[in-house]
């Protein structure tokens, strides 16, 4: 039983949280900038800490300012709700989606990290969106019929 538990929950028998340390000090994986294309090399060097790391403080601050600007745009859209009419909700959803993607891609490092993590998170997002969209549709349809 003990052996079975060890096989199930322990990696190399090191315990739950004391996972094995990195054994090989391989050199850096190939450089990945947040934006592709050689023509952006200078900009990339600026925002990614000279290309030595994934991204540097300057890049993160730029993303932070971008997020603040999008939030301001959302509130501006709120003030213009009557003028925007039917465009109001789509505009707000698009702005929220842009913020969502910026945080997930850059602050949560999915843009730089192994793609498997993106697949794991995206699977939860897709299943959640489909299930709850269906739920909303069914619920609203039932309300309309009543």
């Amino acid at each position: 039983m003990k052996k079975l538990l060890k096989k199930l929950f322990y990696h190399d028998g090191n315990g739950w949280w004391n996972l094995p340390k990195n054994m090989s000090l391989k050199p850096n994986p190939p450089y990945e900038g947040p934006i592709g294309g050689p023509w952006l090399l200078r900009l990339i060097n600026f925002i990614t800490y000279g290309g030595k790391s994934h991204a540097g403080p300057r890049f993160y601050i730029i993303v932070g300012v971008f997020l603040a600007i999008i939030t301001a745009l959302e509130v501006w859209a709120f003030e213009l709700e009557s003028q925007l009419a039917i465009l109001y909700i789509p505009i707000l959803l698009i702005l929220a989606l842009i913020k969502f993607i910026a945080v997930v891609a850059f602050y949560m490092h999915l843009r730089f990290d192994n793609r498997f993590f993106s697949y794991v998170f995206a699977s939860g997002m897709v299943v959640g969106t489909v299930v709850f969209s269906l739920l909303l549709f069914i619920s609203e349809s039932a309300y309309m019929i009543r």
Partner: protein
Amino acid sequence: MNETATVNNHQDEIENTSTGLSNKKLMMWLFLASDVMFFGAFISTYLIYRGKSLNGPYPSEILDIPITTVSTFVLLMSSLAMVLALHYLKENQKNKATLWILGVVILGAIFMGFQVYEFTHFAHLGLTPRTNIFGTTFFILTGLHGGHVTIGIIWMIFLAYGSHKGTLRSDNAIDLEIAGLYWHFVDIVWIIIFTVIYLISANDTPPPGAELLIH
């Protein structure tokens, strides 16, 4: 940045595990994928019952967009502080890392302060979880989010202490990274809540004939 620090930056990416990925990070992403379903359930419940309260106060009478905008900005900036803390920890700059983690704690606490103020203010205006369907769905959703933020703050306090004491270093920066993933997730959930509950629903008025129905 010297070569050793550069190698340290990527230690977590070359894990000696069966998947080649950090088990801790994988576990956190799996948890976050499941938490999407958790919050998705409460957000869709809010949307299903949106505009169906038969008695007030209604969202148009009670929601305060300027205050919530400030608290949203505070939470977004806490995410910036979080990512900077991780960067400096990986760079072996202990003091800066500790300061930025404390920045996350302070900004998170300010956000919670706004939420406590908002809840108290709403209660004074007559909106509690028992008042109407809007109150129930609103308090449950934002309260659960606040619970997540509170757990994150406690976690960050421990990490700040570890960073200060030197037990949290660049070679185990993965511990801060997974806490950061949690914190950023809480942030993106708030991005959705702010849009759906506050901006989209802020002008919601009673459904036609609601007050007549209640009498």
